[in-house]
């Protein structure tokens, strides 16, 4: 009988301990992980071109307005629309691509990352071929001008918003 009671006692203790532990797990605070600056994009071998290098990794600017495209936004959008090879299956997509990337002091672009959202800016997906078409085309834009700040050349981050309606890229 004593042995039986001991087992019940031990089982109760275990249950309590497990219960407490579970509670602690659920109450555990999720600590967000931040990069030194929002948008810092370290090299990812699965995504990035090894040949793209920053000129000065310690000072990459986060100032979109300092990066321009030769001929301005209209020239860049014209190029994007001209090289876009629309497929019939793209027509089911309406939404936006937010494509972030860096331009180094040699005017090369790299470290591309993106978010795809619907008309209400909710996260969404699209068919792989459309995603490939858009991202490849953005990567192929060649005429970026790096940031110049206080008379000196810098690397910098920027982003593009590509608005698509029924598979067609809309100019801004």
């Amino acid at each position, binding site marked *: 009988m004593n042995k039986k009671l001991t087992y019940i006692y031990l089982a109760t203790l275990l249950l309590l301990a497990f219960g407490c532990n579970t509670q602690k797990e659920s109450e555990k605070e999720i600590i967000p992980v931040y990069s030194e600056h929002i948008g810092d994009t370290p090299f990812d071998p699965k995504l990035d071109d090894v040949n793209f290098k920053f000129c000065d990794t310690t000072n990459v600017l986060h100032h979109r307005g300092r990066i321009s495209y030769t001929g301005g936004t209209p020239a860049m959008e014209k190029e994007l629309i001209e090289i876009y090879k629309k497929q019939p299956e793209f027509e089911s997509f309406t939404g936006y691509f937010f494509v972030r990337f860096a331009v180094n002091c040699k005017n090369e672009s790299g470290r591309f990352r993106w978010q795809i959202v619907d008309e209400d800016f909710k*996260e969404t997906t699209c068919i792989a071929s459309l995603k490939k078409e858009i991202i490849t085309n953005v990567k192929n834009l060649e005429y970026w001008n790096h940031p110049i700040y206080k008379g000196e050349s810098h690397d910098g981050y920027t982003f593009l*918003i590509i608005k698509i309606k029924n598979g067609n890229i809309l100019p801004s």
Partner: protein
Amino acid sequence: MKKVTYIILLCFSAFAYGQGNCLLYPEGSNERKACELAYKGKELKQGSKASQMMFDSIIKLNPNYAWAYMEKSVPYFKRGFILEGLQLLDKAVELEPRFHLTYRAYWYFQNRNYKRCIEDLERYYKLPNAFIYELSPGGDKDMRILLGMAYAKLGDYEKGIQTIENCLKSYQREDDFGLTDYHTLGMLYVKNKQYEKALKAFENQLKITEDYPDSYYYAGLAYKGLQKQEEAKIQFEKAKDKFLDSYHIRNGYLCFKVYYADVIKEIEALSDKS
């Protein structure tokens, strides 16, 4: 008087967008601590790890502090993280729609989501305690001008014009007009083929500033629409000269912008005809 009004509005806007008055909260309360921490953290670089962590500490102290969510969202928007930015700003809007709806509308506009921009601004102006003279975050234009532009961007020029006309009518004095208000109205008149009205608007615009090449360009389009080729050419040439002038203004009204190449194209088209 308008300038005084704007300064007052800007101050009020700074208060509305600012951390608030910490003394309003009971001493020793988490709300007070969060508010004071917000003031201390003002020196941190926007978007830095230290800054974002500071916002987390503030929100932990006061999870209902709308300003902190809004302020934390800013670098995300500025750097192309639409999902993260909106997640934070939505929370600020949920807590204090009166103070943050227009800011979200502004970002919707900047990110070319005119439909959502209109929804937010229409909702804002229906609030019983909406500010009549609510300005854009930079303080340079009435949000009703932005609303008018959003209608226009979706192709509803009539509604855009009506919104801006009503906004301008609500101003008390001539110097109440913002730097590009008349320009924006004139531009929408041109889009809507109301050329005579457009020219009148540009006449008023030039009294405010002569440094927008865009105003001459659109005036040129208005003359062109009226079949007055010579006058049109004069305006396009003025636009060209202004673009080449080192002192000219390049931003301020956010849509239907004009580029140097547009002007040259019009000049060349008119030259081919003559």
